[in-house]
């Protein structure tokens, strides 16, 4: 070890910290071949949490011994061989389930310990890995899914992401962080990587240095949603592209050495940043990096929320990228194989994952676009022009896999979006996010309209699933969380209530005005009055 764990003698360390001190999380990789031979029963219960460092979680009920596996995909970019290898793992071992995550990674379910060594072998052959996909370690680095082909990027960040990702992979100097640690590096001017909700993010910026305009990055630290959401703060530094790794290492070192380890619930970087503030954090950073220029001008323009539907020109003349909707981020192994085949037939075979859980097929020459779009898989299932509400709806896992869910979400959100698509249309995208409890797996706080589940028993003893409505969230202009409206909406009338509320917005808004801008202009009061009126008017149909 090249560093001293100065916290090792701290008496009040939490139990997880003690376990991490006794044995580094990454060491679990050494044990997996043996456990695979001996079977699930051979794994001591205390070892279960350490599997996270290998990207493995036990599904519920844990005793059944099925693992969920997350594979890192830096910037979400998969080449043909990688896409095929992942699809085949899902087909051969994972009951054909292939999930794209909100951090551009890929997730499998239903894996047995006996199968893990072969899966690791297959991943290694194509340059993929699960190290750091979970656990108190630098996680999959998210970035611009259009890196290298994006007319709206200030530079190609794929090589930078790759360099930083490779540095932290299997690096035992950084595998014992106080808590999970999320990084994003993107030069897309539409904030495709959701900078403000990462622990550390690099965003596009420019600065005139010695009379020369230099393109580089600003640095934001301390963002994160979870139960207690914070938006990242910008440090007063300007970072040249070649310095990104050095700054990432410095910030991560600060987190490792100064982050809180006594109370696990205050261990995320956001708590340290909240205590120190941006100024003190900048000073500390400069101690590690030496002098850096002060901030320049940030180049981020309006936020695209990670959506890229449709056929778009790449910065390479004659080539296009095509963005498809993947309903709730879930594909089958066969579908991924088909997408890879199509991508190779018409382009270079790449598939790119978005943090909106959708996919992009890049490098399609002009003359092949039409033939590609005529492929059967794009007629129904994966659309470039999904209906408006289906296109921009997000849901957390909900009651299917989550014990904390108070109401059903995923299927309900799908149906709700379908209902709204049939009954109302607006001239701007409206992002609807549904969550089944106050946690934020479905990023409720940054939605235009956030829906949070509750369960009610009414005076006449009816049990009712219901929702509270939040309005006006965004990551534009540095970000703002949405605000709660008073009133609880019975899930059975959620569709009609939202239809009315959205119709009100449609009638009152100015042309092209986004929902966020509308809330900023008029405040939440008119929406509150309207919701109260709608709720008074509509009564739940008898169940």
């Amino acid at each position, binding site marked *: 070890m090249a560093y001293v764990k100065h916290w090792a003698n701290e008496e009040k360390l939490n139990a997880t910290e003690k376990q991490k001190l006794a044995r580094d999380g990454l060491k679990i990789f050494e044990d997996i071949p043996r456990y695979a031979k001996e079977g699930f029963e051979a794994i001591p219960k205390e070892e279960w949490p350490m599997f996270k460092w290998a990207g493995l979680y036990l599904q519920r009920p844990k005793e059944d011994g099925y693992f969920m596996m997350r594979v890192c995909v830096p910037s979400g970019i998969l080449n043909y061989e990688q896409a095929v290898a992942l699809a085949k793992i899902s087909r051969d071992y994972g009951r054909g389930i292939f999930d794209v995550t909100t951090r551009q990674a890929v997730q499998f379910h239903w894996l047995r310990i006996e199968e893990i060594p072969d899966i690791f072998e297959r991943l290694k052959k194509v340059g993929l890995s699960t190290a750091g996909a979970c656990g108190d370690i630098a996680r999959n680095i998210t970035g611009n899914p259009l890196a290298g082909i994006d007319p709206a990027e200030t530079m190609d960040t794929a090589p930078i992401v790759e360099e930083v990702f490779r540095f932290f992979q299997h690096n035992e100097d950084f595998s014992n962080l106080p808590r999970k640690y999320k990084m994003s590096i993107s030069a897309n001017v539409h904030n495709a990587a959701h900078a403000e909700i990462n622990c550390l993010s690099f965003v596009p910026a420019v600065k005139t240095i010695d009379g020369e305009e230099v393109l580089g990055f600003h640095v934001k630290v301390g963002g994160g949603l979870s139960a207690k959401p914070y938006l990242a703060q910008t440090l007063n530094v300007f970072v040249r592209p070649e310095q990104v790794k050095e700054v990432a290492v410095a910030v991560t070192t600060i987190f490792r050495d100064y982050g809180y380890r006594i109370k696990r619930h205050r261990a995320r970087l956001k708590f340290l940043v909240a205590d120190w503030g941006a100024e003190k954090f900048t000073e500390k950073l400069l101690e590690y990096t030496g002098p850096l220029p002060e901030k320049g001008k940030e180049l981020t323009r309006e936020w695209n929320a990670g959506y890229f539907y449709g056929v778009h020109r790449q910065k390479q003349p004659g080539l296009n990228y095509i963005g498809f909707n993947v309903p709730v981020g879930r594909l089958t192994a066969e579908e991924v194989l088909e997408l890879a085949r199509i991508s190779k037939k018409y382009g270079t075979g790449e598939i790119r994952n978005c943090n909106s859980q959708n996919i992009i097929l890049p490098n399609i020459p002009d003359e092949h676009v039409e033939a590609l779009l005529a492929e059967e898989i794009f007629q129904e299932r994966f659309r470039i022009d999904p209906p408006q509400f289906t296109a921009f709806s997000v849901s957390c896992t909900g009651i299917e896999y989550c*014990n*904390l869910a108070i109401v059903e979400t995923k299927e309900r959100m799908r149906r709700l979006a379908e209902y709204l698509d049939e009954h109302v249309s607006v001239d701007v995208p409206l992002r609807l996010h549904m969550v089944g409890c106050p946690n934020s797996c479905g990023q409720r706080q940054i939605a235009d309209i956030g829906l949070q589940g509750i*369960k009610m028993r009414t005076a006449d003893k009816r049990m009712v699933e219901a929702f509270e409505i939040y309005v006006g969230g965004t990551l534009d202009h540095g970000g703002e969380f949405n605000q709660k409206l008073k009133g609880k909406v019975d899930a059975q009338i959620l569709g009609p209530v939202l239809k009315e509320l959205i119709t009100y917005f449609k009638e009152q808004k100015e042309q092209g005005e986004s929902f966020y801008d509308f809330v900023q202009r008029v405040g939440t009061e008119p929406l509150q009055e309207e919701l109260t009126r709608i709720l008074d008017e509509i009564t739940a149909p008898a169940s």
Partner: protein
Amino acid sequence: MYLYRFEVTLEDGVVPVIIVAENDDRAFGQVDVELEKHFLSVPDVEEITLHEKKRIGKGCGFVLQPASE
């Protein structure tokens, strides 16, 4: 077992109620019991709402904000 956070709407306001129970149904039932124990004469309950639950490990709890309407 889970720790549950409820809000109970009475005629004259909203009160938070915290319950330990093994599932949602039992938790709702326990709210009735706790209300009966707490009030000499139980006021009219307009609505009981479950907002959050947490798995009970070695320790867990809730911070109660002033109840929302």
